[in-house]
């Protein structure tokens, strides 16, 4: 708000409102879980590399 910007919050809400009725909610749960797990592993690897990796 001050000198920075976050992603426009209305975008995910708007796209969900469009995509969800067309495809059905159940399709997304597995993909979302896989994506969340991927992000978690990525974060752990990044922190480990930053802490223990060669400079």
């Amino acid at each position: 708000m001050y000198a920075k910007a976050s992603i426009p919050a209305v975008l995910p809400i708007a796209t969900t409102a469009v995509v969800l009725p067309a495809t059905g909610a159940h399709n997304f749960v597995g993909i979302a879980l896989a994506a969340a797990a991927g992000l978690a592993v990525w974060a752990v690897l990044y922190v480990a590399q930053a802490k223990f990796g060669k400079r």
Partner: protein
Amino acid sequence: MRLPSFFQLMTTQAQPKRKLALILPAHNEEMGISFTIHTAHAAGMDFSDIYVVSDGSTDRTVQVALRYLPWQNALHQPQQGKAMAVKHAIDHFRIVERYEWVHIADADGVFSSTYFTELKNRLPEDAVAATGHVQSLRGGWISKYRTFEYTLGLEVMRRIQAFLGTIPVIPGATCVLRTEIIEDLDFTQHSLTEDMDITLQIHRKNLGKIVYIPEAKAFTQDPKDIPDYVKQVMRWYRGAWQVMARHKIGRRFGKLDAYMCWMIIEEVVLLLELTVFPAICWWGQNYGLLAAMFLNDLIIFFAITLWSAGLNRRPDIISGFPLFYFLRFVNLYAFLRAWYEIVVELKFSSDAPGWSTAGRRYRIMTEAVAK
């Protein structure tokens, strides 16, 4: 009666105004100020047009500055805060009488090689203030996130703000003011975010147009760890709420009030999207909706991160992507907490004349400046 200083006596003869002065307010900046002066000179400023005002420094800030600057271009004052230091320097060095424009920058600032040349060539006649482009110095994952934020905030939002005439803040790292309006500005407000206060004064007093000059790029140091990051964003949000309350933002009709209200609504929607909405979905066992929201957010967030990395030619920004989510929550926490402290509890009504950057400085390496 106060006698004129030696500097004032030496410069009393009427001369045509020079284009641009650079003022560097500093508090204990001996580590970085020589690099800042060096990059300012390399970017097109004569040493004779650079002025340093030390605000209660207890280190060798002035001595280090005087290795480069003429002896009369540095000033020391008891600690009164950044805004007062700037005002003191403007008066002492007779900036209004001697220059058309004054650039105020952070003493840890770094400028791109053409920064001041671009500014001098592009400062328009019909404007009273200008701001350049701010970039993060290369650094850890916090710096990577800041690069993402600055790219989105400036490449997109700042251009829209400039088009609408609603730039809400001229960042302290790249703040250019026409000297004619200096007398109309109040530097004694002791705001937590003095740059935003000055900007809103320009709007509220209808002093004139603020322009954005993206070709002039300045670099800033980012917090090096999470406690420092939290401290900085808390100050930004507290200052933003404080200044908006002081200037009665949202209580008048006009594009500035409308735009800043929209910014607040955006933050509230983001808060609902990342906290309240998932909780409701989880409680109602509507996992599909929750998953769809998460995936949409992820795709948009990642796409903007890729774009930011490409635009800055910094693929390393992508590597820190998962950790950016954490900082988004930190920002939301700061937004809410600052709102409660300023609007509900009415705390921080004025700022002690301290410097938020105290203890944050680290030596800048040349390679930290992104090409």
